[in-house]
């Protein structure tokens, strides 16, 4: 089985988010970039499914040369090889389009993404890729079992779950539950340096969205403390003042 895992390079989860240039640029000063946590889950499952010579795992990233440390991390975790499309990831459409171009020339049985990237929180790449390749897509899966010609996936729905069978090839966005992220071992880290990382140039395409500026959430006022033995007071405040119950 040939699996493609789409990975993105995102600010570490502990990052305090700030902006520069009149709130139009994300301030990357001092920010540590990591492999998107959901992509780590997708990668871990892809490695499990191909373990013992049952296939290959290729990772693909749309990014400039600064993302190579993240790509090498994916190789250290266990991917077979890697592709970097040499361009800034303008938006989800741009990223999906570049990956689709690659996949049209190099077909895969299964394409995995993370459910969303933790920076722009879209979960659009999986669906767009599915549409561009005219194959099924499932966003936000919690479980993935691979059979010979089709896979069984569990998808989250509000207040429940849905179980589907899907023939290959298809695209799915992995969430918690699909696999436990893997930590690279020393052998993985050593071999990652020599695994193939191919850089391909992007295809020009029109984009449809532009980030104009950023805002940070409005700060909340000072917390109102209520005595531990006066819970009735809290209930009254929530009812009469906050009007939420």
């Amino acid at each position, binding site marked *: 089985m040939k699996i493609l895992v789409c990975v993105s390079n995102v600010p570490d*989860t*502990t990052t*305090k988010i700030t902006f520069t240039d009149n709130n139009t640029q994300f301030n990357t000063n001092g920010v540590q970039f990591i492999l998107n*946590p959901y992509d780590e889950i997708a990668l871990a499952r892809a490695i499990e499914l191909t373990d013992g010579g049952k296939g290959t795992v290729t990772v693909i990233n749309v990014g400039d040369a600064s993302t190579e440390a993240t790509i090498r991390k994916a190789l250290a975790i266990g991917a077979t090889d890697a592709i970097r499309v040499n361009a800034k990831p303008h938006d989800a*459409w741009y990223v*999906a389009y570049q990956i689709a171009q690659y996949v049209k020339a190099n077909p895969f049985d299964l394409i995995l993404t993370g459910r969303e990237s*933790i*920076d*722009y*929180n*879209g*979960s*659009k790449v*999986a*669906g*767009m890729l599915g*549409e561009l390749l005219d194959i*099924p897509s*499932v*966003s*936000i899966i*919690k479980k993935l079992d691979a059979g010979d010609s089709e896979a069984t996936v569990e998808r*989250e*729905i*509000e*207040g*429940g*779950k*849905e*179980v*589907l*069978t*899907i023939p290959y090839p*298809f695209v799915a966005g992995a969430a918690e*539950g699909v696999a436990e992220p893997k930590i690279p071992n020393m052998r993985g880290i050593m071999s990652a340096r020599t695994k193939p990382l191919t850089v391909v140039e992007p295809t020009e395409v029109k*984009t*449809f*969205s*532009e*980030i*104009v*500026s*950023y*805002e940070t*959430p409005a700060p*909340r006022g000072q*917390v*109102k*403390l*209520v*005595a*531990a033995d006066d*819970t009735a007071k*809290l*209930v009254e405040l*929530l*009812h009469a003042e*906050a009007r*939420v*119950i």
Partner: protein
Amino acid sequence: MSVLIYAENAGGKFKKSIFEAISYARAIADQNNTSLTAVSIGNVDAAELALLGKYGADKVLNVSGDKLKDFVNQAYASIITEAAKKEGSAVVVLSNTFSGRGLAPRVGVKLEAGVADGVVALPVQEGGSFKVKKTAFSGKAFAIVELISAIKVIALVPNSYKVVETGGTAQVEDFSVESKASDFKAMIKEIVRSSDKVSLPDAEIVVSGGRGLKGPENWGMIEELASLLGAATACSKPVSDAGWRPHSEHVGQTGIAVSPNLYIAVGISGAIQHLAGVSSSKVIVVINKDPEAPFFKVADYGIVGDAFEVLPKLIAAVKEYKASA
């Protein structure tokens, strides 16, 4: 032009998040002096379809049939696209539900439209530009995104826009789209809905527990308070990582982002990753025995005290309030 809203149903019924999305789409139609069409897919009865008019749809395109009874991502995306073409829609609105997030990108590609998901406010339209505000960095910030395509696809976050009843009526029309076999490759085997529990992503009140509760056996208190308030239950990452609660309850940067009216956090210290997932809650109550817990800095109300002492008292107080209300 017109505005199109995809009125998603859950087991034949529309949820509050859909009425929010209709009210939101109505407001966009009003901004542009145009009409609002709703498209419903699946088996929804006439009484339920009539509700779409009550919240502002002028017209309803009703697509039914056994093949479409349950959600089929590709086929639904094709239908929404055809509905948008038929109506000449310039804006297509969906609710940012699990299904909506699967549909929006496919519809966007089909219509060559810019797609904004995680949207939390009405678009700002001036001098031909169309800008929307969406969540970014997992709730730590918002991005203002300009959509520069002729058609725009927007997915609205539940609990971010108020339901407005217009009291109107919509004309219901049957609509069908010739189906492509390749749209039905994914087959649903089973749907499990726990009807007795409030679903977390669209809950108005959430009661959430952290490591301060010491173990899964103590979740009875969280569940009792939640059920009294009609709330969904949630937890912090260490709790779901330890297997005390399912992953689907994990709220935070790598879990679910929620935006309820009231978020009650019990025994959660408030790590930056957890705060990211709850920052758009309207009111936050924190119960923690550590007065230095970072969560108090972003809370509206707080009680410094041990969960095991405070929760039973809070449950009693809520019961008393319910009895007197």
